[in-house]
């Protein structure tokens, strides 16, 4: 039997210590709550926030005096292909400016203009004005550091590292607690609380190639779904065109930013053909991100890929090399950074951002009372495509909102029912104390899953491919999962961790695939080769999925258009 370390009481439990989780904890503490802040990794060192390199979008008008939050709002809605929830986008656009100053107070020294007063804002694709405040190609990790410093200033925030949250407990439609495994000793920990904020980030690890931190397994999405929360836009996932696929430990890491294609990087398939010439004789590689991703993916899918499932990127004799070395040394000069001593390497599109996720209202609450969510784990804000620089402010804006409402909601008279505790204890014991004879390793099943998702629910989708994907997923679930065993030991047993994550990922995979099958049109990152047109008559709608009485239930809802309507919208600059 799994050892039970007992129950911890807390006003607010925050799951995840990336940008969203830390910000939520700070706000909840400022509202007087006693906060427990847990991560399955280490505070300040876990999550994808650290990995964000450059831009933090905010309409503060330093890059261009004309800029206003309402233009940021419009850009986000339009570039999201009209299916983002406009009430949430409005919050993001209106409040992101203030978060720039909050972060500076926490200790982020934004780059400034020569006058020393105005912030230096970079242009970013999709934004009509220069909006990207930044710091030294390491904006994300500076933001994470500043937040951790602020977290540590609060006596009422209790951070706990190496706590893998595995379940949310609901009683009578309300959150009453959460279950977790303390990886440091392998014991079950129960949290008794009336308010949980899920801030567990994206789900890139479901895909074979991803640039996210390797704990990005979408746990929060799966747990919230199991607890009865609605998910929105589960079919929407963003890819970035060019990342290493080899060597193995560099798999997924972005090779170059998209605006550097003009410098003369060239792509070749395994037969040595410069295949972009075939698709775009004039522009060749210098095409928009999504088009480039699809072309590369097509080459690989049609069997002209390299040994490690990519295409060749040739960076020899590029005009921009000196520029790169000077201006982007941290990000894009591979030899000094990663030991890539070649100008030719294998690359493929990499999974970059989870647009779908947990559905929230303007208080960041889900349809389950006491369950809140913030950050990348949330769905429905970026619609069908996220523009650069909008994810970090999303963490700050919605982290604060979630923290405030969770603190106000916190109830002291919560009781974790004994029967719920017993059921959870049994479930986890069964899951983790598997008989030795189970022959399949969690890693094997995980690799199968990643392959299915990348191939069938990736950049180019079709009814045939998605149905094949679903069939493979059902086979994985029925035939492989029951055979997945775990090795001995309780302390930091990675096979325990992977098995817990795997179950959640297979659950998510089915939902993502089914939703992608439902959306019979192309919109933003969702490209259907069998329905290549955007259909605003039928599909100005969102797909919402929920577990009702143990059954999965899909529905579509018209997009909420309270501020802007595609029929009448005209873009402009002042």
């Amino acid at each position, binding site marked *: 039997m799994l050892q039970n370390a007992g129950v911890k009481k807390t006003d607010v439990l925050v799951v995840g210590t990336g940008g969203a989780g830390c910000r939520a904890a700070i706000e909840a503490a400022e509202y007087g709550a006693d906060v427990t802040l847990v991560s399955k990794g*280490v505070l300040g060192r876990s999550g994808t926030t*650290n990995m964000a390199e450059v831009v933090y979008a905010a309409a503060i008008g330093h890059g261009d005096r004309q800029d206003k939050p309402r233009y940021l709002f419009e850009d986000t809605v339009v570039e999201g292909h009209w299916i983002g929830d406009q009430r949430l986008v409005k919050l993001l656009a209106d409040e992101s400016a203030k978060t720039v100053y909050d972060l500076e107070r926490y200790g982020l020294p934004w780059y400034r203009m020569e006058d020393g007063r105005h912030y230096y804002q970079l242009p970013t694709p999709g934004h009509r004005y220069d909006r990207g405040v930044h710091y030294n190609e390491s904006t994300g990790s500076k933001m994470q550091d500043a937040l951790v410093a602020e977290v540590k200033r609060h006596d009422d925030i209790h*951070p706990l590292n190496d706590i893998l949250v595995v379940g949310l407990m609901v009683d009578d439609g309300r959150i009453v607690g959460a279950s977790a495994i303390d990886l440091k000793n392998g014991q079950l920990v129960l949290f008794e609380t009336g308010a949980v904020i899920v801030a567990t980030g994206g789900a890139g690890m479901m895909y074979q190639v991803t640039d996210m*931190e*390797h704990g990005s397994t979408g746990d929060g999405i799966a747990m919230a779904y199991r607890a009865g929360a609605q998910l929105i836009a589960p079919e929407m996932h963003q890819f970035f065109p060019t990342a290493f696929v080899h*060597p193995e430990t560099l798999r997924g890491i972005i090779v170059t930013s998209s605006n550097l294609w003009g410098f003369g990087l060239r792509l070749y398939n395994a037969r040595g053909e410069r295949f972009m010439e075939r698709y775009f004789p004039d522009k060749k590689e210098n095409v928009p991100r999504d088009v480039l991703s699809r072309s590369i993916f097509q080459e690989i899918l049609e069997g002209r890929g390299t040994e490690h499932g990519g295409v060749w990127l040739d960076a020899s004799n590029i005009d921009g090399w000196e520029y790169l070395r000077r201006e982007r040394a941290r990000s894009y000069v591979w030899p000094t950074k990663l*030991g890539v*001593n*070649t100008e030719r390497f294998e690359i493929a599109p990499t999974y970059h951002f989870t647009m779908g996720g947990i559905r929230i209202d303007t208080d960041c609450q889900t349809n389950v009372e006491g369950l809140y969510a913030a950050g990348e784990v949330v769905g429905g804000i970026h619609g069908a495509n996220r523009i650069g620089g909008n994810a970090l402010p999303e963490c700050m804006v919605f982290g604060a909102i979630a923290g405030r409402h969770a603190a106000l909601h916190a109830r002291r008279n919560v009781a974790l029912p004994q029967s719920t505790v017993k059921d959870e204890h049994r479930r986890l014991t069964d899951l983790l104390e598997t008989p030795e004879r189970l022959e399949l390793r969690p890693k094997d099943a995980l690799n199968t899953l990643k392959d299915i998702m990348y191939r069938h629910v990736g950049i180019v989708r079709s009814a045939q491919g998605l149905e094949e994907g679903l069939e493979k997923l059902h086979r994985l679930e029925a035939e492989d999962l029951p055979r997945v065993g775990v090795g001995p030991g309780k302390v930091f047993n990675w096979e325990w961790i992977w098995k817990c994550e795997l179950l959640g990922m297979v659950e998510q995979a089915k939902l993502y695939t089914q939703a992608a099958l439902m959306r019979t049109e192309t919109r933003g990152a969702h490209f259907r080769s069998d329905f290549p047109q955007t259909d605003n008559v039928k599909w100005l709608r969102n797909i919402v999925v929920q577990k009702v009485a143990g059954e999965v239930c899909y529905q579509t809802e018209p997009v909420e258009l309270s501020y802007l309507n595609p029929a009448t919208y005209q873009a402009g600059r002042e």
Partner: protein
Amino acid sequence: MINQENAPKNGKPLQVNVLRYDPESGGAPYWQTYTVPRRRASRVLDVLEYIQDELDPGLGYRRHICHNLVCHSCYVNVNGHARMTCQALIKPDVAEIRIEPYGDFVPIRDLIVDYAQPR
């Protein structure tokens, strides 16, 4: 090295000595030697990943990491010096390396340390 086309695919394998520690057995730390093919030995991180994936799933090191020099949770001691495994390149002429847990924090298991508990 990572140079994919000119990599010494058939170079002599690397000997990797890892300091193991299992708190559940109650025993003292002990050394274990693994042999890693050259083509999987560009960075120290490659070596650990190879060992855990191919030779010994029980080897403990942090896996929820960035692989990209930003998270700072991959520290170990390599030949007695604190290094980030994703940054520590292994020269092709090196025959043997020694990996121990990062010395500044209390060990949890094998190469995993408790970053909340400085020593």
